[in-house]
């Protein structure tokens, strides 16, 4: 059973990695997650935005209102330097974790 911390941590990891290359707005982020996980992971408004705001408060991401001609203004989030550092660390942690799980699972199967 995955614990809460892990789940929380993984959600953060997902968001941070999605905006690593380019700034994205909330809807964009939620759709990308849904698409790339083929519908397995789905973020709802009620959990996505509080998480975004929290990450912003921590200074890992930075939200800015952007107006494009003919469109309503949207809030785009990009990774801060601090966020970049956190992302790297979380990636490492995740890999180690997955690696450990695999090894345990592998041992049990053998």
């Amino acid at each position, binding site marked *: 059973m995955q614990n809460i911390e892990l789940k929380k941590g993984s959600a953060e990891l997902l968001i941070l990695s999605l905006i690593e290359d380019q700034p994205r*707005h*909330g*809807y964009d982020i*939620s759709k990308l997650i849904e698409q790339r996980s083929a519908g397995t992971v789905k973020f*709802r*408004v*009620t*959990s996505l*935005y*509080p998480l975004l*705001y*929290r990450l912003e*408060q921590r200074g890992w991401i930075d939200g800015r209102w952007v107006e494009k001609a003919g*469109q*309503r*203004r*949207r*809030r785009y989030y990009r990774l801060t330097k601090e966020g970049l550092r956190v992302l790297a660390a979380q990636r490492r942690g995740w890999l180690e974790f997955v690696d450990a799980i695999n090894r345990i699972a592998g041992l049990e199967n053998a």
Partner: protein
Amino acid sequence: MPEHPDWRNEIAIRLASLDLPPARESEIVEELAAHLNDDYHRLLASGTSEPEAREIALEDLDQRPELAETMRGVERPAPAHPIALGTPRRSAAGDLWRDLRYALRSFKRSPGFAALAVLSLALGIGGNAAMFRIVHAALIRPLPYADPDRLVEASNSGYYPPGGLVDLQQHSRTMEFAGYNPGLELNLTGLGQPWRLKGSAVSANLFQILGVGVALGRAFQPGEDQPGRDNLVILSHELWQDQFAGDRHILGRVVMLGGAGRMVVGVAPRSFAFPDPGTRFWIPLHLDPRDPTAYWARGFMPVVARLRPGVSLVQAQREIASLSVRMLRVFPYPMGRDWAAGMTVVPLRRFLTRDLRLKLLVLQCAVGLVLLIACANVAGLLLARTASRQKEIALRVALGASRARIVRQLLTESVVLALAGGSLGVALAFAADSVLRSELQATSNRLGAADSGWPVLALIAGLSLVTGLIFGLAPALIASRQDLAAAIKTGAQRTAGIARARLRSALIVGELALAVVLTVSAGLLIRSLWKLAQVNPGFQPEHVLTLRVAPNESLCRQRAACIALYNEVLRRAREIPGVQGAAAANTLPLSSAVPASAVKVEGLPYVPSEHAAPMFWAGAVTPGYFRLMGIPILQGRSFDGIDGEKSTPVIVVSAATARRYWPRESAIGKHVQLVWEDRWRTVVGVAGDVRQFDLAGHAPDYVRGAMYMPYAQAEDTDRRLPAVMSLIVRTNTDPGSVVTGIRELLGQLNANVPVDELRTMVSLVDESTQQSRSMMWIFAGFAAVALVLAAVGAYGVVSYSTAQRTFEIGVRVALGAGRRSVFQLVLGQSLRLVMAGLAIGLAASLALTRLLASFLYGTSPTDPAILIAVCGMLAAVALLAGYLPARKAAAIDPLRALRAE
């Protein structure tokens, strides 16, 4: 992409319970609405029907946990108070800065108010700071000795002889004792002009007990107060600089002090001034048990002690009492039991400042009252001001400023005023310092050096802040609590508010009451000084010049030599042109000196072991003294040439002494004896009473009488002929014109005799009232400031409230009220305030002026004449303050007054 109309509404409803700041809420709503809208249009594009797409999109918003709940952990609710206009973000520093700028701007708009307030406060704060500077230096600053709290003085009620000191040193388990002779004076000769110097003979351990080192050389070492090893001296820093030019090779040099050679072993540090600042040298005591008279019967001195570790003051007090009683058995002669009865120890600081403490505390309280008056005054001014700013305040409240915000703004203003007043006060304090100091210096030489300004600056800063908060708080609270609608609608004129009116009246009543207390005090001191000036000192001071002639004591070891010297001085002085007569005496009247000797009075039972013998003030005067000083001989005769060294010993007693000891018979022919003598001295005359100690007639209470001995027959407490005498010359011209002649004469007779303390008897009388005069002037100054402040305050409150009532008065006049009744109406208002102020002030005065009793002469602290005079004066001042507004009110034009509304 058009937005579905009700996303925002749906989101806002779900966020409502969070109570977010409006700006933040709308931001979130916008972002989430965009999300839902995107989803909605995606669904539409994929062929979902509109209602269904809306349903699905909204479903996303209604997941559990609810939006409000997940947001709550991230977003902060809005502050409880709405934000005042012009303060977009809450930051304490920013608010303060804004408040400050706002305050300064508003003062710029009403400079008269600001100047008056700052000046009032500067007077109050400055006076307090100046006084505190002196109090701090004298009473608070630690004594400049090591661990000064452990030092005690063991001579509160009596002195110990040298043998007693040694006895204490040997037997005390709670304290280590050192003795010092405070009144020693010796001649420094051999350096050109001879100098009479004040010094102290001290036990060898004094420096060690005080924990003070020397600046150069060494302190005395144990045993150096024993005979044969005691011909040493330590110089004060000042003496070293003045007479020896700071010569660093002074150590080991022998100087002539009191006619004997003493080797310089050390120089004291610059700041060292024990027992008092005039001390120029320290020599060891001469503790010689082989000479029982010198060891047990002479040279009684105060002793200072250091508590041993862990010993409390109470333990030390208990021990000194029992040691003193035990010591009675050690005396080689019967010592009065009452000598030991009062022996105790007190903290050294308390002992050193005993004559100063009450006076300084009374003055500090008085100046504290001045500050209170200033505060009340400024509070009154602020109240008036907030009243006229009511509209402005109401507007700010209407625009969303909270009550706390308004109070803070107003408090900032008052603190800014107080700080400005404080800064100006600093300047005043430092200017007043020298004035106060010189006024007080006459009282005591223990004021100590001026402080560095730091404690005072700290006090001023603290005082300013506290006063600013105190006088600003009430007006601010009242101003902030008002009826918005009423204030905006009707303007500033008629919503004065009962609370404000009451507070202003209370402030004025308080101010007047405090002013009454100060004015009564000043009045009492003035009356006391006036009484003092009326005192007949018992002699005629006009045209009398005095100077002190101070040969070494050793000169008088042969009595004949001394007698001959003074005979010759007087004979030749009388030959100087302008001199009418000349005489000599061991002390001058009003000089605060007490040449007291223990006596036996014939017929008075004297049991040595019960009581110490009565002490008489014992004058030694040359023939012609009484006539020269204008002291009347009431009975019998004065001295003349026949009362020589070998003839029958005679004395003249004062009238009070004669009354006291021989109330029903003539004193002539009665006998008095110095306790150590075996011959009786016969009373041959009764002289008029003279204020020997001071003009007010104080004298130490152990002095029970006064007698005069002819110089040739005199003995001082050390059983020697007094060597140091004051020469008294009556001139028929300006006393100053004969000074040169007398100096020359003395120089010719003996070049090694210093001559000093040259002054006229008139100036001596003047000096005797100096203490009362300084107190009087300081209080008069305080009272004047208090009166001005109270008058300004009363004027302000009455004229302000009259202005407030312009409308009402206009109505009255329109309805037929005469000018006269309007005048009375307004004046009546000030009268009520004055009456209340006077009543409270008088009651307070009766309670407080008792503190002044010890500074008064011939004046009761409740002197009715003064109380009445002060009431009259204050009433006059306050009525004057009420008169102007009353006249203005009487002149109100009803038409204009009514139209103005």
